[in-house]
């Protein structure tokens, strides 16, 4: 029993509520702020630069000797200077600048990934919401998601009889699983409280979907979307090697066939950068969309 204590507290509490004081943090002088910003940037940027410089140096030293199988960075730069400086040339066929190859790959990814985002969220909602859908579909998903992306390619070539839709299908089928699974987990984890609120307010299923489900599950959905974009970028490079045509994957394969090792290395560099940017893009989008959903 906490009676006497409570009473004493209440007496002090009852007359007036404490006034609300708005606090503004004291602003440091501007120059100091800039200096601090520069320091923080330096702390982030300098270590990776040092590591990159060291690795390049090691690479240069190792591959410099005569008879080495791989070119040193200096040779890579010399060989690919034209490709780096002019990414926009187009000599017809597949003899195009790297920009065109990357943009062709990105278009395939954009299409396949958009389809898988839509289908994945829809299926995820279904599986998360309905116990029977989960029982029926979940085992299927668990098996299908372990199939390597390229294993789908021959089948999709047989079905579509064309490289382009096959590549898009491979993107789709690769990136959909994490989206489905994460969405389903997000839907299943919607707190009962929110469902109760929706029930009391009598939201209809459509309103429940848009006003409760999607915002509540958004952090999970974006985790799935982020894994999905990574996987689809992984898959496109491999798929393009096999289907040919314009695309960064086939560019690499083509360079290998013509023994342009330096070009391969340059392409790998671009593939890494684009993959990184795609990941950041989805992460940033997720941050904007899920702003304010952190529970408090």
């Amino acid at each position, binding site marked *: 029993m906490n009676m006497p204590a409570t009473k004493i507290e209440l007496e002090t509490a009852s007359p007036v509520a404490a006034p609300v004081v708005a606090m503004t943090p004291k602003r440091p002088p501007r120059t100091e702020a800039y200096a601090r910003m520069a320091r923080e940037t330096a702390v982030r940027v300098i270590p990776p630069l040092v590591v990159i410089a060291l690795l390049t140096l090691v690479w240069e030293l190792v591959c410099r000797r005569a008879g080495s199988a791989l070119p040193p960075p200096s040779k890579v730069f010399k060989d690919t200077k034209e490709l780096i400086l002019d990414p926009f040339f187009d000599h017809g066929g597949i003899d195009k600048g790297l920009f065109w190859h990357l943009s062709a790959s990105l278009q395939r990814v954009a299409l396949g990934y958009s389809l898988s985002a839509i289908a994945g969220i829809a299926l995820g909602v279904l599986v998360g919401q309905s116990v029977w859908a989960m029982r029926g579909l979940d085992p299927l998903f668990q098996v299908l998601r372990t199939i390597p992306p390229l294993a789908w390619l021959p089948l999709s070539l047989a079905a579509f009889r064309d490289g382009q839709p096959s590549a898009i299908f491979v993107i789709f089928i690769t990136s959909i699983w994490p989206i489905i699974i994460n969405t389903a987990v997000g839907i299943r984890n919607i707190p009962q409280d929110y469902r109760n609120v929706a029930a*009391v307010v*009598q939201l209809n299923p459509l309103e429940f979907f848009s006003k409760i489900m999607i915002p509540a599950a958004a952090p999970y959905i974006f985790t799935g979307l982020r894994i999905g974009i990574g996987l689809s970028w992984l898959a496109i490079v491999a798929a393009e090697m096999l289907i040919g045509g314009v695309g960064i994957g086939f560019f690499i394969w083509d360079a290998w066939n013509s023994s342009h090792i330096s070009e391969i290395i340059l392409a790998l560099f671009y593939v890494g950068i684009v993959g990184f940017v795609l990941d950041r893009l989805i992460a940033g989008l997720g941050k904007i969309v899920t702003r304010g959903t952190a529970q408090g």
Partner: protein
Amino acid sequence: MTAYLKLDHIDKVFTRGAATTEVLKDINLTIEKGEYVSIIGHSGCGKSTLLNIIAGLTTATTGGVLLENREVNSPGPDRAVVFQNHSLLPWLTVYENVRLGVDKVFARTKSRAERDAWVMHNLNLVQMAHARDKRPSEISGGMKQRVGIARALAMEPKVLLLDEPFGALDALTRAHLQDSVMALHQKLGNTILMITHDVDEAVLLSDRIVMMTNGPSARIGEVLEVPLARPRKRLELATNATYLKCRQRVLEFLYERHRFVEAA
């Protein structure tokens, strides 16, 4: 006594596999319009289950709930709930949280401008209009609960259901909020059913206190009238003989006759 809300022979049995647990047994209660009734009992006695049955979030195994002589067995805004943990949607602002319910309940009867005014009116009632554009994570626990109350009030419920509304708050905030609810009840004359485990809260706020025995198979053990005139003043009541007697009655019920058994 005119029955506004009537609980008619409510039993609730939970079944998990072969095991069945009887949580509530033969709950009968009638509540008048404008009455403030508290249900008190030890934790695990099924009082929250009872509230969920009235709210329509759970169904009774047998028996039913009658509101104005009509059976209600699904959730609806006529029995708005103030949840223990406020249950505000974190991605909506204070205003949007209240507006969500208002838009549904008054979709046909009020224009957009009227609904906006009605939301602000209810936020004003709980003194939260200043925080209309804040998100729940940016306001304190007491403020969240105020918004929760505004959301429920804004649906113009026939019965306002409070599920341990002050349980998660510190003592100071709780006292302040209890006074607010008392003032609102005085002003609006709502019919209120409150679940609580706080004896003082029950005596201070209620017209009647329904005391429940320990579960399983919890029943209504006793119903106590609190014959204190309103408006009630917390400080004056501290020494009021009727208040102390009522408090004593509830304490005796809870701690002597129906002592909480930890193992249960």
